[in-house]
């Protein structure tokens, strides 16, 4: 058991492994955002240990199903390299104006076609990737300190930016409004990023600020 594990550690991360990592990160990131920004009541969340820290995960069945559906599709798109950005938009329930947009840029570090030949590239240890993910999640938590306080009921939506050529399930996914925040009222803060050997995820939060 031990030698195979060692071998797996020594190997460079594959596209599949990277996709799994990124998808998992999105799950925890979205949950963290929903908890921290109070989109769902705090009672709906329970604590789990992940990335060597405590992360809050929703228990709302409907929300879980929704996220699961999205993450499965995103995983598929990540494997084909069709997805470029994932946006968690927090929208006011009453006015239906977007209040915050948490954008995660997905950049391919290495083309999938070169994946087989990329064995010689620098292998990033998983512990390092996890440390980067941890720091992003911590940053998301800490953004509460500067983001405007939301004191109205909100709802959220997840937007996925894909290439035109992406294979889109016909009845499940539809083209939608990008839920933009007006330029005059928008502020943005670039967050940390993390990268596997295949993907590079850059996080950024834009929020409506009328002051």
């Amino acid at each position: 058991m031990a030698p195979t594990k060692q071998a797996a550690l020594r190997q460079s991360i594959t596209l599949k492994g990277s996709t799994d990592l990124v998808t998992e990160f999105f799950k925890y990131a979205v949950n963290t955002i929903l908890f921290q920004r109070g989109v769902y009541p705090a009672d709906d969340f329970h604590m789990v240990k992940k990335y060597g820290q405590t992360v809050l995960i929703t228990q709302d069945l409907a929300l879980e199903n929704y996220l699961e559906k999205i993450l499965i599709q995103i995983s598929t798109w990540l494997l084909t390299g069709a997805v470029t950005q994932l946006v968690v938009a927090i929208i006011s329930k009453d006015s239906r104006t977007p209040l915050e947009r948490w954008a995660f840029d997905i950049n391919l570090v290495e083309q999938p076609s070169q994946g087989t030949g990329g064995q010689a590239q620098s292998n990033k240890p998983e512990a390092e990737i996890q440390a980067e993910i941890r720091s992003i999640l911590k940053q998301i938590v800490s953004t509460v300190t500067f983001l405007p306080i939301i004191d109205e009921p909100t709802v959220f939506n997840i937007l996925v930016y894909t290439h035109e050529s992406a294979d889109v399930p016909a009845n499940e996914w539809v083209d939608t409004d990008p839920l933009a925040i007006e330029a005059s009222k928008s502020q943005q803060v670039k967050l940390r990023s993390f990268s596997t050997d295949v993907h590079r995820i850059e996080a950024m939060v834009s929020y409506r600020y009328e002051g």
Partner: protein
Amino acid sequence: MSSRKAPLPKPQASASRLRTTTTTKRDSLAAELERDPQLSTAKRQQRAHALNTTLSQAALERKLASAETTRLQLETRLRERDTTIERLEADRRWLSEREQEEREEKVRISKEREEEKAKAEQDIRSLRSSLSTLQEECADLQDKYDALSHSTSQRLAAQFAELASRESQVESLSAELREAHEAATSHSAEVLRLQTSLDAHAAAQTDLARREAEEASWSVLRAELARQAEHTRHLEAAHSRATAELSTLRERHTAIEVLREENRALERRAAAADELRETVVRLEAEAEAARAEREAWARNSVLDTPATTPVSITQSLSVLRLEHAHLLEEHGADRAALREREAELADAQAHEADARATADVLLHANRAAENRATRAERVAALAEREVRFLQALNASYVSEEATQGSGDIDEAKEQHSKDLEVLVSEYKAHIYALETEIQELAKRPALEHSSGLQALRDELANEKNALQEAQRALDEKVEAAEQDRDKIEQLEQTLFELRGEIGAGRHVPPGVRVLSLVANPAQDWADLRQAALDRLKEENAALLQRLSVLEASSIRGGRASTSTPADVSTATATDTDTDTNVRDATTGPSSMTAAAEELVPRASWTAVCQEKAQLEEELRQKEKRMLRLRQVFAAKTAEFREALSAILGVKLAFYDNGQVRVTSQYDLGAAFVFQPAPRSAGSGGGGAARMQLVAQGEGGPQELPQLMRNWVEMEQSIPCFLASVTLECYDKWKREQEMSVRE
């Protein structure tokens, strides 16, 4: 429709009538029964059958009527639905048009954005490329600069070395010059000394001439004078030689002013020699005068006889002659000394010139020897190399020979040796040519060195200029690079802002779709809200309609105030007036619905219905939960009871009225019923519910009354009572068991 409905009341009425008759005739039938049971039974059966048939017919007709009304309702609903669908369709069309417009707008904006972005990207790309080229240029220039500085430093070092050698040369030359100066000064001192001695001699000569004027040794005097003139000529020659030497010195060290001054001093001395010449001329004149005087004296002596000549004069003359001879001797000695000195001087000069010439020759020889030595060394090195080459060749030949064996190699060797000889001869010719060239170069005057130095200096200055220019160009490039860096920073800022644009969703990159799941929380919320809004709108519209109807009716009512309330009700009723009447007659949910439709709008009704359905659903869920909880509770209770019976040996049964029946496990006859005592009745209650023994079973041990008296009445401890009963029962059971075993 009404024709079909018309006969409906009849069976209803007949049914009711029948019912009444049956109820009224029951007593008479009973009376008949008593009289003739068989006939009455048959009749009763017949009547019952007829009644049943009528009843079923009526029920069927009722059902038909209700189905008809339901159909009507459904048709009206369908119409409503159709209108709603049409309205919705129109709305949808309008919305789709709007959406289309919006999309076109979006596409246009995205195109513009795309163009802008493409332009910006192109700019960035071009700027990046220019930056890279500039950086490359900068790197090239840096390299060139490095190379230049390196070569310049090398040249500087070489020139410094050359300067040092030149300085040493200059030092040696100045030392030579100093020597020449010293020689010149010594020569001038010699000349001065000779001048003074000449002056002294001239003075002595004048004295002698004056004194010997009378003694007339003219020939001697003449010779003396001639010799003096000759000496002067010698001096002049020496002087001219010195002048020539001076000129040569001046030619050699034209740059040196001191020599010129020396030369000037020498010229001044030449002027002094002219003065000397004048003195010589004067002396000659004096000598002429003295000759004239001597001739006068001779004439006098011819005229005078020796007898007449006084003895004193003769004596004085003899003394004078003696003196003259003595002086002549002295003069001859002085002249000899002078000659010796002159000869010495000439020797010294010749010696000096020789020495200088030899020094020059030696220097030349030394240089030539050095050159020759270097050449010889080079030749030797060449020869050595040649020898090594030949050795290597030889070795290769040997190896070749070893590998291939002898034979035709000799010819090749010969050929090769010939070639080598030719090569050697060529080399020699080349070396000779080079040697001649070197000699020619060596023969070139030293001025070329200075010109070479000048050329080197010029080159150095040129190099410095070039270096400065390169430095300036480098500075410019560095400045340009700095500017480019600033530009890059600005562009990066722009890039960040553009990213912010994308991040804020104001710009969707070209070739990118923005997708979201159809069933997303936002959409769900929107749908929910829309549905609630639609419902409210419908309700509102219906209410408004109702209000308008009511208003119309009130107006009508106001106009016909004398009409009866029944008329009002008919006026308010819609076109289904007759139906309502029918429905009023019948009893059932459809009539209730119709009544509701009358009083509240349909929309409100449906909303309430939906709410009701929701609540019912909730209720059902709650009930289900309750049931489940009850099941769980029952299971737990059973478990509890079993545990109790196993531990205490009694079976417990709880009744709804709070009583508890306790039955011993060992004697089913020993059963007791307990009832919780009322709180007020409990004397020593202590909070816990006290039980009262209210009944007992038929069986039980024989000592039961005693036990009851003891434990219940006296001790008032039911647990102890039960324990003792259990013990007794167990004993009895055990005995019975043993007896049955024995039997």
